[in-house]
């Protein structure tokens, strides 16, 4: 309003000009903005409810796609899990048909040589002195292993001290076949189900299953006492016996082919023949026995070199399962 405005002052009975102070301007502006704000809120509410911005449309469509396909894939994944479960049952079933025993739980199977750290979950617990604790456990393991080896008699220990080096080279100390993965030990020493009779009978050695032609090695230095071929479908088949002295004889049976002769001197690790399935055997394997002073003993205690403590523990577990021997 360009024109000057006046108000009538009833006290002075005069017309006075209307002065607009800054305060008035500010108040008016504030009022205006408040109204604008309320309108803005109104616009926002209406828009939010009934309209979508382009960006919102894009986001919504993307999410819908992701959700749709995720749901489909999730269902597929459930199917796959089901298939895996069935597969596991079939796997176990074949194992049972062959060994007449439940398969190795996968915790032992997959914890392979040097693979998973046995004390991994201790590490994950964020213990403060975890290094010390794990050290202790490892030392305990070593001690336990050593205790097993202390089944020697006092005389033997004297003997050992006197003929230390000779004895160390001669006494059986390795596995007769290459078993780095530790998966080949199929059946241990003790009462096992006979594959043909289906009754428990004493299995006097270890069975190492391996394909025909796998090399077999002497497990200690000695002299070949027997190297015999047999065409019968029963018994030990083609077999080798090695006399190591100190009362120890090792026997290797069901061989495909023998590569040593009676009377031959061998060292630990020398090739003596190849894995087969001759004699009373239901699958190619090396049947390995240790005869001490005429008595058959558990060879598992004589696997000392080339295995870590973890690997040895795994071998012990494998050997102690009461399953079916291979022959």
């Amino acid at each position: 309003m360009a024109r000057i405005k006046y108000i009538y002052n009833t006290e002075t009975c005069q017309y006075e000009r209307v002065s607009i102070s800054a305060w008035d301007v500010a108040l008016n502006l504030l009022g205006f903005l408040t109204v604008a704000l309320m309108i803005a809120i109104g616009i926002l509410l209406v828009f939010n409810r009934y309209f979508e911005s382009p960006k919102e449309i894009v986001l919504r469509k993307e999410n819908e796609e992701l959700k749709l396909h995720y749901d489909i894939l999730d269902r597929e994944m459930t199917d796959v899990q089901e298939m895996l479960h069935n597969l596991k049952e079939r796997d176990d079933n074949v194992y049972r048909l062959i060994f007449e025993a439940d398969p190795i739980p996968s915790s032992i199977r997959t914890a392979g040589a040097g693979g998973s750290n046995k004390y991994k979950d201790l590490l994950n617990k964020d213990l403060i002195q975890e290094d010390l604790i794990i050290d202790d456990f490892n030392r305990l393991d070593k001690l336990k292993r050593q205790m097993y080896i202390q089944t020697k008699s006092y005389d033997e220990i004297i003997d050992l001290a006197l003929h230390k080096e000779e004895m160390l080279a001669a006494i059986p100390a390795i596995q007769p076949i290459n078993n780095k993965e530790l998966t080949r030990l199929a059946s241990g020493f003790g009462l096992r189900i006979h594959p043909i009779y289906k009754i428990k009978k004493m299995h006097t050695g270890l069975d190492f299953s391996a394909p025909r032609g796998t090399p077999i090695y002497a497990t200690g230095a000695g002299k070949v006492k027997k190297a015999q071929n047999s065409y019968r479908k029963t018994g030990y088949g083609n077999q080798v016996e090695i006399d190591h002295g100190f009362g120890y004889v090792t026997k290797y049976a069901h061989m495909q082919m023998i590569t040593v002769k009676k009377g031959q001197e061998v060292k630990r690790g020398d090739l003596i023949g190849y894995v087969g399935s001759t004699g009373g055997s239901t699958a190619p394997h090396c049947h390995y026995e240790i005869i001490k002073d005429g008595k058959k003993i558990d060879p598992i205690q004589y696997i000392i070199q080339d295995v870590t403590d973890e690997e040895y523990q795994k071998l012990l577990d494998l050997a102690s399962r009461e399953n079916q021997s291979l022959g």
Partner: protein
Amino acid sequence: MSLTKYQYNEDSCTYEAIEPTLAQRFRRGLMYFLGATIVATIGVLAVFKYFPTPKEIAYNAERHLLNEQWAYLSIEENNIISALQAMQVDDEELREILELDSLSLQIRNAGIGGSEILSNEEIKKLIFKNQVVEQYKKIAKLKAQLSIQALSFDTLTKYAEDRNWNWSHIPAIQPVSHKELHRLSTVYGMRLNPVLKRYMPHRGFDFMADRGDSIYATADGKIIMARMTMGGFGNQIMIDHGNGYKTRYGHLQRGNAFAVKEGDEVKRGQLIGFMGSTGRSAGPHLHYEVIKNGKQVNPIGYFQVELNPEAYEKMLLLAKENAAPMD
């Protein structure tokens, strides 16, 4: 503005009150709101150019969740792949033991096509084409590999079952207990018949023990004969093992000879009858025959290890003594 305002009319030199008409007031109000609205709109647009709308915030939160779910799909897949690989290793080992060829890589990777779940048109319309298609491909691959592994296990199962069936249905043990056996005649072929006093073929083994001693089935099968016969075998049992093999047990005792009847299914080691001397026989013994595809064969090839190799050797020593046959 409650106070009346006045204008100074220069023409009439008086102060005139300003009284805006309703129309004028309305127009003023409208302009005010219009102004406020414009300001509001500009304000809203400006603000949401830089800040996310409520819907956007919601969609973003949803997206975050969806991304995590998709990431989890990958983790699940990796777990499944590990489990599948473990089973493929099992498959290899079991094949080794069963002496079957291992599955070639070609076979393992067969049947891995593209993602058949989505059609090409659907794929073209996808926003996250690569991500979605890749996941479908991965799942399809997993399913294919699992199917192949399942087929392989089925093959192994059938093979192991057949193998077990074959072993349990081939004569493999002595029909008379080692403990009760007095003498054993393993003369197979022409010999002097003690009753008829002339040379005739003897097509079985004679197990000599006491009258009434137990006789056992030497393999799983079905009893096809368990009665008195007139041909010289007296009370005899015949078992059909279903694989071309039959076994015959002759000269069972006079009264109460049979522990089974015709049609019975028996298992290896099951008691089937009692030793006697019926028919053409010079004394209590069991005449035992192994018949393959209708023709008698030498039973010597059908004895697996009884208790241990030494016992078997002993049995052969007994056989070497060459007791004269009793029929």
